[in-house]
C-alpha cells in the first residue's frame, strides 16, 4: 500500500520538526512562563507568581532601556559599516574580474574564525599601553600619545570599538552576497549606460544599487539580526564595561540571569528582546525574503 505524497512529505519533516519543538519551542515556552514568576536563583528555590511585575520592572529599569538603545546603535554601526566596506570590496572584485578569484577566496578567511578569537585579537590590538593600534597611529604621527584614544576604556567610544571585530569578521559575508548579486547584473545594461555617457557615480547610484536592492535587503536583514544578538565579541572585550557603556541586550540578559541571579526579570527581558526581534524579522521576511515559494 502506498501512502499519499502529502503524508510522506510530512513523515520526512517530522523528525526535524520534533527536534525544533523540543529543543527550541519548549525552552522558549519555559522562558516565557518564567517571566511571570519571581524566582529564587537557587536550584529548586521558591517560585512566586507575580503577573506582569517583571515586565514593569524591565521597562522601568534604566539599564534595560539603555541596553535597548545600545543594541540598536551597535547594530546600525555594524551593518552600515559592513555594507559600505563589503560593497566597496565587491565592486573592486567585480571590476577586476576573474583574475581576482584567488584573492576573493582568501578574503573570506575571517569567516572561519571563532568570534571569541576575533574579540580577543581585537582586544589585544586596542588595549591600552601594549595595544598595537595606538602605537602604530602614534608612530604614523596621527596621535601624540599611543594611549590618547582609550579604545576600550573610554565609555564614549567603546560601543564603536567592540563593534570592530564583528565588522572585521563578517564584512566578507556582506562582500560575498553583494558580489554574487553584482554578477547577475546584465553586462549589456552597464554597456548601454556607459554609451549614454553615465559616469561611475551615477552608474552606481542609478543602476547598480537599484538592481541590487533585493540582495542588499536580504544581506542587511540577515546581518542585522546577527548583530542584534552579538554576545561573544563584546563579552570577551569589555564584559559590557566600562560603566556598562558596551552592555547590549544579550549581555544584559546574561548578566541579569547569571550574575545578578534574577531569572524572572532576565526571562522578562529576554522575552521582550525576542518579541522585538521576531517582529522585525517577521516584517522583513514577509516583505522581502520569501523562502520556499516559487515566485
Amino acid at each position, binding site marked *: 500500500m502506498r501512502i499519499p*505524497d*502529502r503524508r*510522506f*512529505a*510530512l*513523515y*520526512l*519533516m517530522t*523528525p*526535524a*520538526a520534533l527536534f*525544533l519543538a523540543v*529543543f*527550541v519551542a*519548549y525552552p522558549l515556552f519555559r*522562558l516565557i512562563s*518564567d517571566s511571570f514568576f519571581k524566582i529564587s536563583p537557587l536550584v529548586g528555590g521558591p517560585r512566586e507568581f507575580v503577573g506582569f511585575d517583571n515586565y514593569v520592572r524591565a521597562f522601568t529599569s534604566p539599564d534595560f532601556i539603555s541596553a535597548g538603545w545600545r543594541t540598536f546603535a551597535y547594530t546600525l554601526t555594524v551593518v552600515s559599516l559592513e555594507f559600505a566596506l563589503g560593497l566597496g*570590496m565587491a565592486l*573592486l572584485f*567585480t*571590476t577586476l574580474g576573474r*583574475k581576482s578569484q584567488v*584573492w576573493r577566496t582568501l*578574503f*573570506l*578567511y575571517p*569567516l*572561519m*574564525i571563532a*568570534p*571569541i*578569537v576575533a574579540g*580577543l*585579537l581585537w582586544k*589585544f590590538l586596542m588595549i591600552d599601553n*601594549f595595544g*598595537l593600534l595606538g602605537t602604530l597611529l602614534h608612530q604614523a604621527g596621527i596621535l601624540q600619545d599611543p594611549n590618547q584614544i582609550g579604545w576600550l576604556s573610554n565609555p564614549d567610544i567603546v560601543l564603536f570599538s567592540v563593534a570592530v571585530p564583528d565588522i572585521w569578521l*563578517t564584512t*566578507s*559575508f556582506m562582500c*560575498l*552576497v553583494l558580489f*554574487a*548579486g553584482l554578477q547577475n547584473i546584465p553586462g549589456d545594461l552597464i*554597456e548601454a549606460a556607459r554609451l549614454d555617457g553615465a559616469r561611475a557615480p551615477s552608474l552606481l547610484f542609478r543602476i547598480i544599487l537599484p538592481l541590487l536592492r533585493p540582495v542588499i535587503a*536580504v544581506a542587511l536583514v*540577515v546581518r542585522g539580526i*546577527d548583530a542584534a544578538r552579538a*554576545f561573544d565579541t563584546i563579552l*570577551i572585550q569589555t564584559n559590557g564595561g566600562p560603566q556598562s557603556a558596551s552592555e547590549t541586550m544579550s549581555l544584559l*540578559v*546574561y548578566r541579569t*540571569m547569571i550574575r545578578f541571579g534574577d531569572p524572572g526579570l532576565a526571562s522578562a527581558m*529576554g522575552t521582550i528582546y525576542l518579541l522585538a526581534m*521576531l517582529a522585525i524579522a517577521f516584517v522583513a521576511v514577509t516583505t522581502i*525574503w520569501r*523562502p*520556499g*515559494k516559487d*515566485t
Partner: protein
Amino acid sequence: MSIAEANNHGGRPIGPAAPLPAGVAHSNAQAPASAVAGRSAFQPGRSASAPTPAGAGRKRRSVHREGLEAGKRSTRTILWILLAASLILYGFPFVYLLFTSFKTPIDTIAVPPTILPKEWTLQNYANALGRSGVPASFINSIQTAVISTLLSLVLSVPAAYGITRYKTRSGRIFIMAALVTRMVPPVAIGIPLASMMASVGLADTPIALSIAHTTISLPLSIWLMSSFFEAVPKDLEEAATVDGCSRLGALWRVVIPVVSGGIAVTAIFAFLASWNEFLFALLMTAIRSQTTPVVIANFQTQFGLDWGSMTALAAVYSIPVILLTLLLQRKIVAGMTLGAVKG
C-alpha cells in the same frame, strides 16, 4: 523579488573555488550567500561566458570589457594596488596574532609593542597546550562538533527533501517556522535548555552541548539543503520510481548521490557553527565537557592576563579550520558541478 528568485538567475559561479560563506560559524543566519554560491555552482554553463582576453590589453589601450569589468590598464593597476592594500589591512590582524604567539611571554606585553617577535620561540605553544584541560577541550570540541554535524544532517536532509519535492502547505509553514527559530537569541533559550538537559541527566556532556548547537545549525541546514534539492530535476526520481524504486529508495539511491556535494557543504557549515560557538558552551558545560572557546575565554580570568598562551591557543584552534575549509572548497564545488552534470 525574493532571494530565491535572485538565485535562480544564477549568474557566473563565484569561481571554481567558490568561496564558502562559512560565516555560519558565528552562529549567524547566513543562508542566502550559501544558496547563491551553491546554486550558481550548479550552472557551470555560464562560467565560461566571461572570456577576458588577457593579451588584448597590450595592443589596445582598452580591452574589451564585460559589464562592470574595468577596461583601461591604468585603472586596473590602481584597482590592483587598492585590492592589495585592503587585503593586507584585512589580513594583518590575524597575522599579528600569529607573530605574537611566537614571541616570548614577556615580549607579548612589551610597551611599545613590536610587530615581529624579537626572538622566535614556541614557549607560548608549550605553555598553552601543556595547561591542564586544554587537550581535553580539543577532544570535547571535536566530539561536540561531529555529533552536532551528524544530527543536523540526519534531521535536515529528509526534511529539506520533503519540503522541496512535495511543496505541501505544511512544508511551507515548516520552513518559515525553521527560519523564525534562527531569530531566537541563544541567550534566551540557553538557560532553560541547560536545565532541561540537567533534568534528564545530561548536564555537562558533549551530547547535551551538541544538541544545543544543532538548534543553531538545523534551521540553516534545512534551508541550505532545500536550495540544493531545488536544483535536482524532478525527472530524475520520477524515472527511478517508474523503474520500480520506492520513494525512499529513489531518495537514497538517486537523489542523495546527486546532492552529495551539497551535503558536504551543509556538513561544513554545521561543523563550523558548533566548533566556533561560545555562548551555549559557556552556559552548558563545566569541567568535563568544556570546549576550547570557553577555555580561551577563561584564560582571561583564571590565569591573569597570559596573552602569549591565549594567542597560541587561538592560533591552534583556528588554523586547522581555516586550512581545511580553504582546501575542501575546491573539491566541494567540483563535486557539486559534477553531480549536476551527471544527473
